[in-house]
């Protein structure tokens, strides 16, 4: 599968404090985002997710490393036309109505949009009814959705979102999640940072896991959930046809236990690898509490 974004050894140091001291925010972070996939960018607060995104979008300058959007180095004018972005908790011009707001961002993107197209964009984020209302009257969830609409107004191929579901109530999160799934179904590649592991587990095909400025895992979510668990789940019936369930660590032990059950006259009903939660994987990789 084609890599739509390739990141190679990004390093970034900030200088903080009255007497500026260097703080390492990113240390040789490398990963790739595959076309048409939903990639979660996961890490605790301060892990370096936002810094990475800001480096990729040229908001901050790199110390070293390189990155490619659509195979082209850097974030040039061509990439800008093909990428949409929504930061975490942004403030929008409150005096603009939802319609005017999208029209402004469409014009800024160099796209001349018909009124019907803007209304469609609002419809896609369930805000058609609020089109004429000023953004200052929007709720937090509505602002997040109109923010999503501005990120998508120029029909980007890659959508980069910084904590898109952070600070929303459960209904708001579900709504945003559904919108993101719809966007992904249209073939848009999604790359979003989050520390909400449930959302990442429900949405993502791939994950990039960051801890203390380093990428500790980048790849398939399914693979890491299965790989990280050495447990096998055995469901079997004994000779009296009573159903049992056992968890066995390691493949060899599982095989040995299966032979024991069969030898004692039992029947194997199901053997499967236990699938761990992303939360467990996260704790394991980042050294947090398990």
């Amino acid at each position, binding site marked *: 599968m084609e890599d739509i974004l390739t990141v190679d050894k990004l390093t970034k140091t900030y200088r903080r404090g009255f007497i500026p001291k260097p703080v390492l925010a990113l240390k040789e972070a490398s990963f790739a985002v595959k076309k048409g996939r939903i990639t979660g960018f996961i890490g605790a607060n301060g892990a370096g997710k936002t810094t990475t995104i*800001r480096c990729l979008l040229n*908001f901050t300058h790199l110390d070293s490393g390189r990155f490619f959007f659509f195979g082209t180095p850097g974030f040039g004018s061509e990439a*800008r*036309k093909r990428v949409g972005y929504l930061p975490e908790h942004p403030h929008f011009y409150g005096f603009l109505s939802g319609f005017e707001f999208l029209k402004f961002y469409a014009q*800024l993107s160099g796209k001349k949009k018909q009124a019907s197209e803007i209304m469609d964009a609002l419809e896609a984020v369930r805000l058609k009814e609020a089109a004429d209302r000023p953004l200052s009257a929007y709720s937090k969830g509505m602002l997040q959705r109109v923010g999503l609409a501005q990120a998508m107004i120029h029909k980007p191929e890659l959508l980069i979102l910084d904590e898109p579901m952070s600070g929303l109530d459960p209904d708001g999160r579900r709504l945003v999640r559904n919108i993101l799934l719809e966007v992904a179904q249209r073939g848009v590649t999604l790359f979003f940072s989050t520390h909400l592991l449930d959302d990442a587990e429900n949405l993502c095909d791939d994950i990039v896991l960051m801890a203390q400025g380093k990428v500790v895992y980048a790849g398939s979510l399914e693979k890491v959930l299965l790989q990280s668990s050495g447990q096998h789940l055995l469901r079997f019936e004994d000779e009296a046809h009573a159903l049992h369930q056992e968890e066995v660590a390691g493949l060899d032990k599982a095989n040995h236990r299966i032979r024991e059950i069969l030898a004692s006259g039992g029947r194997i009903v199901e053997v499967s690898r236990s699938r761990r939660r992303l939360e467990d994987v996260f704790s394991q990789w980042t050294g947090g509490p398990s």
Partner: protein
Amino acid sequence: MKALLLIASVTFKELIREKTLHGLLVVFLLISIFSLILGQLSFAEQVRMSLDFGLSVMHLSVVGLSLILGAQLVQREIDRKTIFTLLVKPLQRTQYIFGKFLGLSALIFFTTFLCTLFLVLSMRYLGQFYWREIFTTGFGQWIECSILIAVVLFLSQFLKPPVTIFCGVALFLIGHWFETLRFLTQKNPDAGLKILHDVLTFVFPNLEIWNWKGMVIYGEFLSPLHLAAAFGQGLLWMGAYLFLAALLMERRDLIA
């Protein structure tokens, strides 16, 4: 160019709703009305006194507005993260800076126009019709404010807004005291003072160039050529400071 004008337009629309602007306009109105009353108390020169006072208040109001709004123009958008949704679009940081400048400069133009209109009507009420003189002074004040906006936009690239405002006020005062500084330099043999004078005159304009209040009050006529030359000189200073601001903006890390 279109992106630049879009930023200018949205900046103007945003700033026109600013409470600072409304507050300063109210203060200007109140003080101007007070000046009319004060003028009536004087035995002579009522119109000249009211006009002088009104133009001074207008000057301070628009300069204050330029410094306060200009100092936070960029930093506020970084803090609120609005800038990130803009700069991810096909918009250069230089275009962003110039757009912000144009938006605020247009607002100051509009505010100055409103104030001058009020003063023209006040003078009409007092029986004098000084519209050309008052508008000329307003024009000079707008050029001066636009230079100050460019200066604070430059300073705000590396200073926090309160420090930027402080430095802006200091430069405003220095800009109007160049003649005094030159006089002191001539009278005082201190080499340090001379170096300070030379450096300041090199890096900052003499703002008295655009202060036409005195000429107008005493009925001196400013030719269109004079106005055009002063405008051109102002544009050069604005351009220089905006160029530096854009240069720093391109290089800085945008951190909320």
